[in-house]
């Protein structure tokens, strides 16, 4: 019984892996990876960060560097890291709320960045 179940799981995970690889290959065939601007070309006046680091760019744009680039990211990382202990000492509801607030802040800044740099301009 257990043997067939394991095989079944491997089949399902194998299908997920094939779909993932197919999706990745389709993206690679349809959307070329960007190369940016050559350093022999005239200097660009406004460099846009990759989307992954968009929240950083938003923080740096509106806050002083020590706050936006050091303190706030460290607070977010410390908050995520300490989740198991937050839940233990403050209760599950509060722990999950703090996590939700931190994670949604990142998503909010990402959407802000994309709206500012990628969609509206």
């Amino acid at each position, binding site marked *: 019984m257990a043997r067939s179940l394991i095989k079944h*799981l491997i089949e399902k995970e194998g299908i*997920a892996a094939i779909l*993932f690889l197919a999706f*990745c*290959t389709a993206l690679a065939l349809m959307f070329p990876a960007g*190369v940016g601007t050559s*350093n022999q070309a005239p200097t660009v006046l406004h460099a846009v960060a990759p989307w992954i680091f968009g929240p950083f760019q938003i923080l*740096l744009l509106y806050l002083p560097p020590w706050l936006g680039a050091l303190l706030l990211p460290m607070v977010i990382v410390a908050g995520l890291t300490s989740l198991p202990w937050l839940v233990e000492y403050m209760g599950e509801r509060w722990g999950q709320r703090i996590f939700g607030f931190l994670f949604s802040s990142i998503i909010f800044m990402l959407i802000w960045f994309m709206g500012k740099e990628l969609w509206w301009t």
Partner: protein
Amino acid sequence: MKDHTTFINHIRPRSIPSRALSVFYTFCLGGLSFLAFLVLGITGLLLMFHYQLGESTSFGSILTISSVIPYGGVIRNLHYWAGQLMVVTVNLHMLRVVWTHSYKPPKQLNWLVGIALLMLVLFLDFTGYLLIGSQESGAAATVAVNILGLIPGIGAGLAQSIFGEPSALSGSTLVVYVWHCVVLPMILLLLQLYHFWRIRRDGGVRPL
């Protein structure tokens, strides 16, 4: 019961709980992240054959790979998209872990390892971006060096050891190359293996 902690039993357990076999519990997100890591490793190795490190050569070699080397463009695109998808799957995996309360005791240590893996993936993504050697990567390297320089006492030394001395026109330095191609993937691989082992050690996945 003693052999539950052995490596052999870990890679080929005699039995595992049926509740741990639900694909809709994990959505395979951890496994897919590891798959993306393997794709990145293979495509990255292929890219290394033609990538030429240097302030004036990095960008040109990226263009050569993308447009001259047979299948180079596809390999580079695969490397890029696997990296982007890995960031997405790792984040979704973290959300799934929180959703199913899988960070609770005895899994706190594995939660910490997971956060370290997330940070490493982001750092790998950033160093990969710097290796393009474009003006944008030079700007990104300059910003990163300046940010690290804000840390009192150790900031300048830390920036030097992580980024070398990037110019404003290209972020690709030998230090960044070694971090991206050797050190970070090795640390990431070892931590991932430890992460997988801890899952079994801590009792596997549990449904809600």
